């Protein structure tokens, strides 16, 4: 089965078959079966990712193993595993999504009870990854996701975002560990950063600045989505008329 699954990893039924097999094995001996087989399965999944690190079914299957069996011995390997995957490819959207699933969408892990601490950790991790590849959408979406979920205002990361909206790298020699700057050679300004800052300005009621940033996107930096940015300008100005 392992060989078939690796060769035909884009086939849906291969993964469903493995679910059926695991369910059967564990239904026979739910209490006594050691988690070794499940850990082996997670290792197998890791091997499959060497062939195709973004395979949709494989990530979905990994989530199923974690939530269905729900054992701490399985959950504890996840953050290191995700960091390895993101370390290999910071643009792996599946890995970012999986991180959100593990940290925010599947209950609270042992040791993660201090949610303020978890949020700080996640924001710090995400900022570091944005710094490596500022135009990569995934960590920006992740940042929005965690701020939305914890109802933290976007402006709380304003200081971090601003350097990414400039055309040139800062010549500031003072290193701010809390706010890693864009890495050398990054293409600036970064489109997701400009959008993020526009949203911050909008939330602060600084409408002309928000409008200017959306205009920069539509006319200059992200022209393919001009009609969407024009919509954002109208919407932002509509908000200002209301207040």
């Amino acid at each position: 089965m392992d060989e078939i699954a690796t060769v035909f990893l884009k086939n849906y039924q291969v993964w469903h078959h493995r679910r059926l097999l695991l369910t059967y094995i564990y239904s026979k001996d739910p209490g006594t079966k050691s988690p070794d087989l499940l850990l082996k399965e997670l290792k197998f999944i890791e091997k499959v990712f060497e062939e195709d690190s973004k395979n949709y079914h494989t990530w979905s299957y990994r989530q199923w193993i974690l939530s269905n069996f729900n054992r701490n011995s399985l959950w504890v390997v996840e953050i290191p595993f995700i960091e390895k995957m993101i370390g290999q490819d910071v643009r792996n959207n599946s890995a970012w999504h999986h991180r959100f699933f593990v940290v925010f969408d599947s209950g609270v892990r042992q040791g993660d009870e201090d949610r303020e601490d978890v949020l700080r950790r996640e924001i710090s991790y995400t900022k570091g990854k944005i710094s490596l590849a500022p135009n990569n959408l995934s960590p920006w979406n992740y940042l929005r996701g965690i701020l939305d979920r914890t109802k933290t205002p976007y402006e709380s990361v304003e200081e971090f975002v601003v350097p990414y909206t400039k055309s040139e790298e800062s010549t500031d020699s003072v290193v701010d560990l809390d706010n890693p700057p864009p890495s050398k050679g990054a293409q600036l300004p970064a489109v997701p950063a400009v959008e993020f800052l526009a949203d911050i300005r909008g939330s602060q009621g600084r409408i002309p600045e928000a409008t200017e940033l959306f205009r920069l996107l539509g006319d200059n930096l992200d022209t393919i989505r001009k009609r969407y940015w024009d919509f954002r300008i109208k919407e932002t100005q509509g908000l200002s008329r209301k207040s």
Partner: protein
Amino acid sequence: MASTLLVDRHVSYIQSLGDNKDDLAYHMTAHLRLNAVYWGLTALCVMNRKDALDREEMIDFVMSCWDEGAGAFGSHPDHDAHLHSTLSAIQILIIHDALDRLDVPRVVDFILSLHQPSGVFAGDRFGETDTRFLYCGVAALSLLGHLDKLDVEQTVSYIRKCKNFDGGYGNCIGAESHAAQVFVCVGALAILDRLEEADHQTLGWWLAERQLANGGLNGRPEKKEDVCYSFWVLSALSILNKLNWINSEKLSEFILSAQDPDSGGISDRPNNMVDVFHTLFGVAGLSLIGYPGLDDIDPVYCMPKSVIEKMGLKKGWVALERRKAL
């Protein structure tokens, strides 16, 4: 590189699909044969060439896929019944005005038997669940006029749980947002008249972000463009009434560049092998953005708009106005 839609070439390509029965590839695709017939027929309808394939032959083939034991359709004669092939069969028979050939009560029973307590559908008796099958179940019941037999709250509650932090939907609860899964969830919500469940603004933005600089659309962030997303993304945007958030000129150029000017057909991206799946979704995408000379397609059901309107099933989606000329 072609700058117009090569309709005649694509029609010939679709007509030739059944010809190479000696090809191994033909037999390796038996598991989606009925789906492929629906893709080919719908593509012909969009190009106003429905008669290019023989109606009676097609209906006979559909009926030959009937699985008497299950009371539904498999993808090929002697294949087990599956929800996806059953939907394709229903769609083909409706387009050909031959729904009377169907044992409707048995098919409805089959569909409902696959509805899970969680609200999702399984694809067949082997139990694989996916939001794709949820769409198939909802669309099939709707087309057969038996949507009232469905527990709508149960179904909608599953879709609600699939909504991700980025506004998108995956193939099950917790799964990564993916444009094809977004289509099936938004399409199902549209049929069930529960579109308010979706976060229109965030999802619309996520969908608009699928467009790459070359005009093509991808299925999730940092992945490659693929012509089939021209339908999954566009239909979802059309249902959310935000189709103008996509640059349709550049998308049109991209789809046209993926045509094979020699053999006909459209592929996932330029210079790859064509197939009938990408041919349908390429022309369907072009239709939604108003490409001249094409027939209107209903994005919720991916069937001719005139057929869906006649059945009283048209929902409030909006396509771009059809241009008179290029």
